C-alpha cells in the first residue's frame, strides 16, 4: 500500500509541496546507524503540533505570525513524558486543534512509549520530549542557527539514542 501524500491537502496547495526537491545544501544523504538494541535504547519524541504546558510555559507566538504570515515562532518547549492531557494547550494556526487537545497522544505518544518501555520492547524514554510549532519552511536559517543546535544539545543531555519526529 502506497500512501497518497496529498489526500488531505487542498488541491491548490499541492504545487507548493510536490516536486520541489531538497532545500539548497540539503541534497546529500545523512545517516547515523542505529547500533544498539531497541530494548537497550533511549527514545525521544518530537511533535510540531505546538503543544505546551499551559500553567508553566509561555504559548508560542501566534500573534506575531498573524501580523507577519511569513514568520513562524522558532522556539521549542520541553514536555515531560508524564504530562497530563489536561495540562496541555496547543498553539497552531494551521489545523483544528480539537482532536490533539482531546488526546495529545495522536501527536506525541509519550504514554504509549512508556507502555512499551514497561513491556521492555524499548529500553527507556527520555524524561522530556520536544514540542515545536510547524509550517516553518519559510524561516529555515533561524532554525538552522539556533533551534537545531539547541535541540541537538538537549537530546544529547538526555542521552537519546534515537528520535521520532512527527509533523502535525
Amino acid at each position, binding site marked *: *500500500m502506497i500512501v497518497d501524500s496529498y489526500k488531505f491537502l487542498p488541491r491548490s496547495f499541492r504545487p507548493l509541496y510536490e516536486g520541489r526537491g531538497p532545500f539548497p545544501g540539503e541534497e546529500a544523504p545523512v545517516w547515523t546507524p542505529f547500533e544498539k538494541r531497541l530494548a537497550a*535504547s533511549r*527514545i525521544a519524541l518530537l511533535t510540531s503540533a505546538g503543544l505546551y504546558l499551559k500553567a508553566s510555559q509561555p504559548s508560542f507566538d501566534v500573534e506575531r505570525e498573524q501580523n507577519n504570515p511569513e514568520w513562524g515562532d522558532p522556539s521549542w518547549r520541553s514536555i515531560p513524558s508524564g504530562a497530563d492531557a489536561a495540562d496541555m494547550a496547543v498553539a497552531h494556526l494551521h489545523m483544528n486543534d480539537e482532536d490533539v487537545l482531546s488526546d495529545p497522544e495522536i501527536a506525541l505518544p509519550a504514554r504509549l512509549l512508556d507502555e512499551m518501555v514497561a513491556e521492555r520492547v524499548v529500553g527507556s524514554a527520555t524524561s522530556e520530549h520536544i514540542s515545536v510549532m510547524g509550517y516553518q519552511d519559510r524561516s529555515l536559517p533561524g532554525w538552522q542557527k539556533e533551534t537545531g543546535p539547541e535541540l541537538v544539545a538537549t537530546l544529547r543531555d538526555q542521552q537519546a539514542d534515537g528520535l521520532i519526529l512527527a509533523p502535525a
Partner: protein
Amino acid sequence: MPVLARWIEAAGIPTVVVTMMPAVAEERRAPRIIGVEFPFGHAFGMPGDKVMQRRVLELALRVLAGATAFGTRVDVDIEWPVPLREAYRAWQPKEASPIVRKLLTTWGRA
C-alpha cells in the same frame, strides 16, 4: 521537519519522520520515513484509538532501529475510518491560517 531530522541525524542521533506527506519527506531527503494516510494533526492516528496509535509507533520504532539504508520509507496500511469529505473538513482550522490567507489573496489578484 525532514530538514530538522537531517540536522539531528547529521549530529549523530538517528531519526525517523512519521508524516502524512511521505513523498515530500523523500524529496526533502529525510533519512527514515513512515508514511500515514491520515489527516494533518493526526500523525499517530485517531484520538482515543490506542490500537491504531500503537501500530504506527511500533512501525516507527522498527524502522528507526532496523532500517539499513538512507531514505528507507515504509507506509502504514491503515485506512482513515472517517469518510474523506468529512475528514478533509475536520482537520482544517476554523479560520484560514495567516499564510493561507495571504496566498489566497495573492492568487485572487493574479
